[in-house]
């Protein structure tokens, strides 16, 4: 029997993704589009499929509509059948202690009933926020072979980023001797990837204990430190491509990695699956390149019509680049239109934006950070929210944010300087 048998997957997909700003303001972070045809959660679900796992509980909370439309019954990942499936687990009321999920551990605690129904031997806890290809089956096999209570996947990160992660100290045989959650001056740079294999009885006991203690409901802050010394915690080292795309900069970089054969991110090799036949995507025609088109170092999805120039960029389905327009270092999402002669540089343009003729959007790195959200946006990228409309000859600088639905047509605006934000 494959090690993955009798392992239930609990996939935490409620993430708010606030540092992705307007990209994740109307959708959960795992539902954010990626790589021209995918959403972030496709990477985790494809890993689940390739690892031979069969049953997934999908924990949703924040703005779950796009996510539920996307995952539906799990069919794109072959997660359908008598013993295979994806079950959506929203927060629920009914028992006296059910409520909005108070943390990652609480989300699992509130779904103990779901887990008990499957009587699993092990539970694999995942999040839908990362870009990577990983064989969970090998990790589960290591967990079994070593007789661990909990196995945590980990990879080294640069020392100056350790404060963003839970880090662990291990003995020579891989057993975890210490764990620190997001601290300054960490003892190690071996970071937790938020991927856990629990022996099921241990998980149940620890969840009940942490909820009873009412000190906090998080795996990194409460469950794992509480298990140190009492339980057998194993580190499972991983060394491949793995990116947390939680910031605008890292999201943009990981997308651009799709264009670089040396990056380690290879969409074709990884066999990432998505739900290509959801409404609005399924019936797309092939892409058409006109006689003046020039496309290099780029990804072009279905239904695009290109008559301008596209360099080092990713075009999602149905994007139109009109004659004389130039798109450079940019992500242009579904059904956005770049008007004649416009220049889009270093920008992320969400779905259904309409950019008129002869506009200039974005400037590139080295401009002052966004004034409203300097913590989110200082890398130079300009964000246009879903459905924004920009009249011809508008000039928008770098690090700017236009909120979803902003329509500049008919508004007497001067050029938008670097770092500006328009909310309505």
């Amino acid at each position: 029997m494959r090690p993955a048998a009798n392992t239930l997957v609990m996939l935490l997909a409620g993430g708010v993704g606030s540092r992705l700003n307007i990209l994740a303001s109307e959708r959960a972070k795992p539902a954010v589009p990626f790589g021209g045809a995918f959403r972030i959660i496709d990477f985790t679900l494809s890993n689940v499929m390739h690892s031979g796992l069969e049953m997934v509980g999908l924990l949703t909370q924040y703005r779950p509509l796009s996510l539920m439309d996307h995952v539906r019954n799990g069919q794109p990942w072959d997660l359908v059948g008598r013993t295979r499936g994806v079950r959506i687990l929203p927060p629920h009321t009914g028992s006296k202690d059910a409520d909005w999920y108070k943390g990652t551990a609480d989300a699992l605690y509130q779904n103990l009933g779901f887990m008990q129904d499957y009587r699993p031997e092990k539970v694999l806890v995942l999040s839908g926020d990362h870009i990577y290809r990983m064989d969970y089956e090998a990790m589960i096999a290591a967990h079994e072979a070593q007789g661990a209570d909990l196995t945590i996947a980990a990879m080294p990160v640069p020392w100056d980023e350790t404060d963003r992660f839970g880090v662990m100290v291990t003995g020579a045989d891989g057993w975890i001797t210490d764990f620190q959650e997001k601290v300054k001056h960490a003892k190690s740079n071996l970071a937790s990837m938020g991927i856990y294999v629990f022996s099921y009885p241990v998980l149940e006991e620890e969840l009940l204990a942490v909820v009873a203690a009412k000190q906090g409901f998080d795996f990194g802050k409460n469950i794992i430190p509480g298990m140190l010394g009492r339980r057998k915690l194993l580190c499972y080292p991983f060394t491949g491509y793995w990116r947390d795309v939680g910031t605008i900069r890292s999201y943009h970089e990981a997308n651009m990695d799709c264009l670089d054969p040396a990056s380690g991110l290879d969409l074709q090799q990884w066999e990432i699956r998505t739900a290509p036949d959801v409404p609005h995507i399924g019936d797309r025609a092939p892409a058409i390149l006109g006689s003046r088109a020039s496309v290099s170092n780029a990804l072009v999805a279905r239904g695009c019509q290109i008559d301008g120039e596209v360099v080092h960029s990713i075009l999602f389905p149905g994007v139109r680049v009109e004659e004389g327009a130039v798109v450079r270092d940019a992500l242009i999402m579904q059904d956005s239109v770049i008007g004649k002669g416009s220049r889009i540089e270093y920008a992320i343009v969400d779905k259904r934006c309409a950019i008129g003729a002869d506009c200039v959007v974005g400037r590139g790195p080295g401009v002052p950070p966004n004034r409203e959200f300097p913590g989110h946006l200082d890398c130079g990228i300009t964000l246009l929210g879903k459905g924004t409309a920009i009249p011809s000859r508008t000039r928008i600088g770098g690090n700017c944010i236009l909120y979803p639905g902003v329509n500049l047509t008919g508004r007497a605006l001067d050029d938008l300087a670097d770092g500006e934000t328009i909310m309505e």
Partner: protein
Amino acid sequence: MSVKIVGMVLAGGRVDELLVLTAKRPKSAVHVWGTYRIIDFALSNLMYAGIDVVGVLSQYRPYSLATHLGNGEPWDFIGRSRALRVLSPFRGAADSDWYKGTADALYQHIDFFERYAPELVVVASGDHISAMDYRPMIRQHYATGADLTIALKRVPRQQAHLYGTAVLDPSGRVVIYQEKAPNPKGNLASLTVYTFNTTCLIERLKQNAREGTTFQIYSEIIPRMLAERANVFGWVFDGYWQYARTLDSYYAANMHILDAEAPDLAAWKVRTNLNPDTPGDPVPAVFRPSAQVRSSLICYNAVFEGSVEHSILSPGVVVERGAVVRDSIVMHRCRIGAGARVDRAILDKDVHIGSGAQVGRGEAVPNERHAHTLSGGITVIGKGTHIPADLHIGRGCVLATDLHESDFSSARIPSGATVGL
């Protein structure tokens, strides 16, 4: 269970003139415009006309067609009272056999559509590229009280002899019908799309099974209905319609999508089965820094390092560095090796062109053995054939399916040659 209208799609024919393209599939399963198969147009038209139940009559090498149709889900033909069924010839009853003609194919499956007790049966062809809305034909059928309504399209006089043609009286009644007559009286060509009253159809099919000789709708059912003064009307369609009866016209029909006056595929919303026959999923097309692609239709899973001009490329095509593809139709998963040149060619699926090879060089001559279908200088290479590096292939050539490097002994295949057929 009853539905008002059942669609029956005639999709079984090979059409020998398409040579290697229909070596392994019926014409209705031949690819067009990158991601589509020809039958997608009839199925999309039936879906958009609100028809809920469709039977697809298939006979010749039906595997690729059946895989493509699946359970009908791409066209929403699923549910309690919606269905798509592939109807094959069967044995068991004394009179069943391979389909002898279109009328016989329908006759063998009377059980299928009778079960739904429809008022009407719409019979459509699975090998036409058309954007036909069947609803006006159906409305006219009810309004005229017809037993049979035939879809017609006005064609140039000099082409009328290629078709069945009708002459209508002012009320739209068919007064003359001639099948491929040398000098037809009319130029309204039959599109082999028919709306029948179900009771009339069943009666005519049973009669034809007893008394027929050709078992074709056009040569027996229609003439007999006219002779017996049944209510046969014509409905004139003036929208987009193409029918490829030769390799030359198949090439032209495909290339038409790149013309300025081509139909807008994005607005048309033709549906196809997206389940790709590759293990992964539709990854957007990859353009490497050296790519130069213009005036072309391109699909997912493709990788471009070389140049492409005025061509139609299906999913999964790889054009390596320094390769040049011009004026060609390149189907799924073909690989054009480094420095190779492909001019005015049709490459069926899984063709590999070795590095430095040249396809479609030289003067445009008709194919020596198949000039009736291939006279315009297009070279056609069958599915799965691998062309060795540096081989030169002329124009107007036809190469069979599944040829391997070792099957080629010379360094040059002259224009007009046929290999392996």
